[in-house]
Each structure stands twice: as C-alpha cells, then as structure tokens.
C-alpha cells in the first residue's frame, strides 16, 4: 500500500502515545531508579550502583542463583509447551469440520478456555487434579498411579504443562485455521490434478500458507509462557519447594513479598530486556518474511521449488502480502 507522508498524523497518534507512555515509560523509570539502590526499612535508600546486576548474573549469590534457576525453569517450560502446542494446534486446525453448524460450534468450544480468567484456569485444574476431590487425580490414583501435584515435583510439572496445553492450544489452532481458510480452492484443485499426496499438499500448500500465522502463534505463546504467573501460582504456588517457580513468580515474591525493591527492580530490567530482544527478533523476521515473499511472488516461475504440485498454473492467485 502506498501511504502518503503526513507528519500531522502524529496528532492522531498522540493520545495513544501519552496513555502508553504514562503506563509504561513512567513506571519503568522508577524501576531504573530503584535498581541502583538498596533499601532498609521505611524509605531509606542507599546507592548501590550496578551491584544488583552483578549479583543477578552470578549464580553463586542468593539472588543470582534464584534468578538463573527460575530463568532456566521458565525457558524449559516455554520450550516444552511450544513443542506440544504448535504441532497439536496444527493437527486440530486440520481436523476442523469443513462446513455447517459444527464449524461454529467447534470454534466456540475451542475459544472457551481462552476466555476464562487466568486464576480460574488455575482453580479449575486445582480441583480437577486433586487426588481427593478431583476427577483426574482420583482416576489416576484409582488406576494405580501415585499422582499428587502438591508433593511430587514431576506431577506438579506435568499438571502445569497439561494445564497450559489445555489453556492455549486453542490459540494456535484458531490462528492456523484462519491461515488455512485463506488458501484459495484452486490450489487444492491444481494439486489434485497433479495427483499430489496428502503429505505433499500439506508441505507445499498448507504449511507455507500458515507460515505467517504460525510465526505469530509462536511469538505469542513464547511471550505469554515466558511471563506466566497466575495459573501455576494458583495450582502449585511455585512448589513443591521451588520446582515450579517461574521468573514472574520469583519476581513477585521478591518485590511484593519481601519488598526488596532494589533486587526486584534489577531483576525486572533484565527480564524486560530479554523480552524486548526476543520481541525484536520476531518482529524483524516477521517483517522480512513479508518482503521476501513479495520478491518471490514477482519472480514466481524461476524459484518455484515444487513444480510437480502444480502451483504454477495459478501465480496470479498469489494473494498480496500485507506488511507485518
């Protein structure tokens, strides 16, 4: 799209800028301020320079040990749920009914977990998994598994992961479904004429079409799982011991539990920086993917990798790519 250059547009953006600056930049400044100081008791502050940051990155100190351990747990958690939710989401999206009232019904049921307050998600799994009153815990124990998420580390982890899969796989599925729906019928017809196998259709037509939405899905799922707080906190409270204490839980413990403002602020900054970097990488990849495919579309026949699947007859149908 050719947009006109107009600096007056800043006036239209100004309200957003002010609101977000008020609720993001201003608080962040206090965080920067705190991160350089130590506090004893009531509002007595002492200059500490970069001391907290040094401690934070040194695993031998208490603060550093706690931060790095929770960071490791959090990264592991994010990777596990991505490895489960992305393939499962794709499979569910491919399993969506084609037409009729069942489509709407499936969409509504799929979206249901996404609309439940996060602490209620925790509550649901708490009372679903408890061995004494929960269906899942009761059935598992009756079947001979010694399942108890309150006392066993592995059970707690499994519960938290299954809960996240329950909560968020629908998001991946809905995004993929939207991507699949944007594929023109002609692509499938061309593939059928060429006698392409089911797998070839998936690899050459459906997967490339889902690229963009999958990227968004991975970004959202990584970010949201990286800052997960409420759900595991309600179910396990970070325990047993510290085994399900993720970065946000650790941070809130230090900030609002111990009121250790300096440490909490330093941790916040490092945490935010990690998020910002990952976010920027995704944003760049997303923007570049848009540009790359524009180039590819314009030189279609030369770079078409799989002529056998028959995308060639319909280059004109390549829908225009929006800029991410």
């Amino acid at each position, binding site marked *: 799209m050719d947009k006109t250059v107009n600096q007056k547009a800043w006036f239209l953006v100004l309200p957003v800028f002010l609101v977000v600056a008020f609720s993001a930049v201003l608080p*962040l400044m206090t965080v920067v301020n705190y991160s350089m100081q130590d506090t004893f008791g009531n509002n007595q502050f002492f200059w500490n320079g970069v001391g907290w940051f040094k401690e934070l990155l040194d695993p031998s100190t208490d603060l550093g040990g706690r931060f790095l351990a929770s960071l490791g747990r959090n990264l592991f958690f994010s990777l596990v749920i991505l490895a489960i939710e992305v393939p499962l989401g794709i499979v569910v999206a491919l399993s969506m*009914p084609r037409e009729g009232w069942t489509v709407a019904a499936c*969409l509504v049921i799929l979206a*249901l977990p996404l609309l439940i307050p996060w602490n209620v998600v925790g*509550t649901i799994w708490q009372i679903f998994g408890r061995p004494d009153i929960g269906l899942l815990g009761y059935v598992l124990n009756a079947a001979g598994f010694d399942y108890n998420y309150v006392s066993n580390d592995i059970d707690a982890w499994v519960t938290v992961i299954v809960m996240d899969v329950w909560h968020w796989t629908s998001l991946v599925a809905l995004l993929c479904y939207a991507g699949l729906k944007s594929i023109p019928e002609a692509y499938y017809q061309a593939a059928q004429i060429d006698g392409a196998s089911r797998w070839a259709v998936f690899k050459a037509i459906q997967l490339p079409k889902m690229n963009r939405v999958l990227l968004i899905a991975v970004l959202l799922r990584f970010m949201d799982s990286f800052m997960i707080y409420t759900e595991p906190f309600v179910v396990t409270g970070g325990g047993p011991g510290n085994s399900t204490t993720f970065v946000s839980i650790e941070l809130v413990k230090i900030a*609002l539990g111990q009121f250790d403002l300096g440490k909490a602020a330093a941790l916040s900054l490092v945490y935010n920086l990690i998020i910002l970097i990952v*976010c920027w990488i995704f944003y760049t990849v997303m923007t570049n993917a848009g540009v790359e495919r524009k180039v590819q579309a314009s030189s279609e026949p030369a770079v078409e990798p799989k002529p056998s699947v028959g995308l060639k007859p319909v280059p004109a149908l390549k829908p225009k790519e929006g800029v991410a």
Partner: protein
Amino acid sequence: MHSIPGRRLIMGLFLVFLLLPIYWLVNMSFKTNSEIVSTMTLWPHTPTLQHYKRIFTDESWYSGYINSLEYVVLNTIISIAVALPAAYAFSRYRFLGDKHLFFWLLSNRMAPAAVYALPFFNLYSAIGLFDTPWAVALAHCIFNVPLAVWILEGFVSGVPREIDETAFLDGYSFPRFFIKILVPLIASGIGVAAFFCFMFSWVELLLARTLTSVSAKPIAAIMTRTVSAAGMDWGLLAAAGVLTIIPGALVIWFVRNYIARGFALGRV
C-alpha cells in the same frame, strides 16, 4: 484434500479434553460441600443452589463482580477511544518514527505484568488512584491499547481510501468524517476490538489484585478468600469460577468469525 484422516476422532477427543475440566467445575458448583469431600460422584446427587445463592446475596461477593465489570468497561472505553485515531493514522499515513512506534506498542503488549506490579503500585498510590477502578483500568491500557491499535488498523485498512477522499471533497471536516463515515464503516471492527479489550482485562489478575485492596477488589481476588480456618469451601469456589466464565461464553458467539484475528493482534 483440506483435512486429514480421522479428523472427526481427533476433533472429538480434543473437545472432550477441553470440556472435561469445565464440566467438573460446573458439576462441583451444584454439589453440597459434604458431597464433594465424602464421595466421588459424576453428577450432583443432591443438587443445590446454595453456593450461587450465597454469591448473589452476600455483598462482599457480588460487589467483586461489579468492581471487575467497572474497571473492565472503563478500560475498554479508554482503549478504543485512544486507539481509533491512531489506527487511522497508522493505516493511512507515513510519518516520522511510525515503524518504531508500532514496534514499541507491540513490545508493551508483551511486557510481563509482574515487572509493572510494583511501580504501578507506587505510581497510583502517589496520585491517589490506588484502590479505585481507574487505577486498574489505566494499568490494563498497557496491553489493551496496543492490541486495540493493531486490530483496528487492520479494519481501517479494509476501507478503501477513495471513501476518505470523496468525503473530504464533499466538504466533510476531519472530525465529522471520522464520526459520521469511518466509525460506522468499521463498526464490526470496533466491536471485535472492544471484545478483546474486555476479555484481556477480564482475565488479568496480577495487576488488578495489586492495585486494589478493599473497595475496588475484583472478583478474581475475592475468590482466594474461600480458604478459611474451616478448610476450603470448594462448592463456593466452583460456583464463583463458573460465574466468571459466563460473560466470555455469552459474547463469544458474536465474534466467533473474528476470534483468530483478535488473538493474532489483527495480523491474520
């Protein structure tokens, strides 16, 4: 060609997996506490409405729902109001720093709430908004305003530019064009954006809990009270949980075709 073999079975199993925990919650909310603790029953043998009755008659309970709705509605109004002009600007014009601003908005949507809990607490205490719905409404703007901008930008881009030009040729001033022509044209988009602002503000707990203490306490925070010296009041907890699911479940039907778009920050 579109779908895979055994898709009915896969879909069916997945839907059961999604519904089973919710069914258990609903089931439990209709049981008496003695039935919950003593036996494992798949449906309430002595069905009771006592938990729901308690929530609807005890002010400390139902005021939680009112408090939550208050800040959620406030937040939705603020978010949409400031996001609309910005969405138009991003969609139609190129200006100094537009791409950086767009990325900055995205990065705020991703910022962990835990980072902001403490500074927000200080900020809103300092300006005297602590424990009011305004504090939570403004705090939730940090992720809802970017979301609203991203969703609305997509819808505004769907309106042909010729319409703007014709309107201006006809002598419409910018505010009049905006309210009389653009807003009705993207009414569905505004509805979708409002739904998502409503929803994300409704499901968030950490900030809402940190910024309130007594008079503006959200229902999600009140639910933690069911732990008492006499043990957990499981039935009450389940009933309160069911009631928090209902608002989302009611409106979801209207936006079912836009769900993916909203969750993808308007990028589908």
